[in-house]
């Protein structure tokens, strides 16, 4: 499968289809048994996680991964620091703090989290925690943003709010997004391309309308919901 720059591609498929494995392969958490992973024309197969991330990949996790004892702003700021050009200059500490704090505030604002910037991440609501993790990813200015079930575990209202915020973020354009999501409504509202995985294989690929109409997908996945 391939993702073009600027597109929002959702990966769907039943449990065990290999969606999270795909994420782990791209980010180097798991080594592929076969095949190659190419990012922006460069082969990244087998590189350690941090090297791949430094090439401009940012991801969120299916189960929220945060720094619970740090404030929301510091969570995002550390994320921004990871990719900031000045991070190795030991004597430029205050300049680096100022620049990354600014980037953090911008990302928090985008996720409508400015009001809780000084709250410790561990005591935020689950919905805010999911958004905070996305803010951390955005603050890294990724070329590829990978979201693993961003609305997992959210109530209907929280999901609606999250989708609304994500749509606002994506409407600015320029972001390439790979999205894994269980909630079909969320997928159809956000994605402009959909890949359907089933038992580790791509069984369909295309714009939402075409995938919806695909008979094989109906029987493998979507059908199970309707019939």
């Amino acid at each position, binding site marked *: 499968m391939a993702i073009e720059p600027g597109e929002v591609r959702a990966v769907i498929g039943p449990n065990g289809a290999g969606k999270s494995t795909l994420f782990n392969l791209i980010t180097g958490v798991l080594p592929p048994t076969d095949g190659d992973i190419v990012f922006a024309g460069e082969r990244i197969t087998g590189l350690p*996680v941090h090297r791949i991330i430094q090439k401009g990949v940012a991801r969120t996790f299916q189960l929220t991964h945060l720094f619970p004892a740090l*404030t929301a702003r*510091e969570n995002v700021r550390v994320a921004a*620091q*990871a990719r900031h050009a000045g991070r190795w200059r030991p004597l430029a500490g205050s300049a680096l*703090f100022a620049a990354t704090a600014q980037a953090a505030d911008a990302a928090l604002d985008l996720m409508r989290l400015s009001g809780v910037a000084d709250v410790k991440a561990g005591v935020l609501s689950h919905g805010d925690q999911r958004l905070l993790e996305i803010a951390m990813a955005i603050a890294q200015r990724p070329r590829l943003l990978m979201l693993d079930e961003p609305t997992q575990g959210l109530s209907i209202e929280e999901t609606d709010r999250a989708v609304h915020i994500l749509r606002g973020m994506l409407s600015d354009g320029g972001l390439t997004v790979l999205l894994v999501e269980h909630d079909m409504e969320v997928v159809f509202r956000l994605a402009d391309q959909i890949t359907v995985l089933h038992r580790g294989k791509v069984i369909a690929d295309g714009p939402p309308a075409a995938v919806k109409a695909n008979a094989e997908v109906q029987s493998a996945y979507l059908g199970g919901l309707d019939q």
Partner: protein
Amino acid sequence: MQRVVLAAVVVLLCALAPVVPPFTLTLITEALIFGLFAMSLDLMVGYTRLYSFGHAAAYGLGAYATALMLLHFDLPLPLGILAGVALAVVVAVPIAWICTKSTGVSFAMLTLAFAQLGYAMLFRFKDVTGGSDGIGGIPRPAGPFGLAVFQGKLGYFYLVTFCLVGSYLLCRVLVRSPFGAVLAGIRENDAKMRALGYNTRAYKMAVVVVAYGFGALAGALYTPFAGFVAPELFFWLVSGRVLIMVVVGGAGTLIGPIIGGAFFLMLEHELSEATDLWPLIFGAIFIAFVMLAPEGIWGLLTRHARTQPPRPDDDADREAPRAAS
């Protein structure tokens, strides 16, 4: 406010030093050395959640390296100490490289293994290390520039105080720097830090080497202070004691472990004169702190300050460095 109080304590100590009885001065000097030792471990335990059960290795390395430097090269005292620290830091690099291959309990066990390895090697290489006798008669050379001021009890006290205050300020800058922010992230969630693109292993190696460096400085200061070194400096009891000092003093505060280390040493001195059962009392104190005041002595001292609305400059020691807002 805290800064003012701390500075006042240091000034008071320095002012009183010439008038206190010599024996008290000796005790205070040793307490400060142990405070420095505990503070160095706090970089790993309090700031990065890397539990070392073998920090005696840092202390022993610094002590033995300095002993050999002073004994064989007739360096001026401060230079001999610095050379000892440098040697210990070089040895710390491969130790850090191996230990950071693992995490959690295995990390703790590996650090312990290296300390015990050092202990065993002292007996193996008797010609250099003196085996179980250790090395005695270590001089405090004035060196070619006649720095005789450190040879006396009072001068040495000032040297130790200077090293402690300097190390504290350096560590404080370190934990409040972007590097310190990364350590806090590793403490909170190592996997997430890697997923954000940090090479966490490199950061952990760095903090282990730095902690060994300051721990070695404490050991290096101990050598001319005591005039001899013995294998016990490497022993796991030393590692255990310093870990307890960090926890009782208040992990993740730098100043807490200094107080914890000094407090413990004074207490041990007083109690061991009064009763043979002093380890029992130690144990009770440790349990009481873990159960009733896990934030440690420094946490108790500043509890009042922390219930007040936080001011931008006060009390930031416990937190990860924040951007000036």
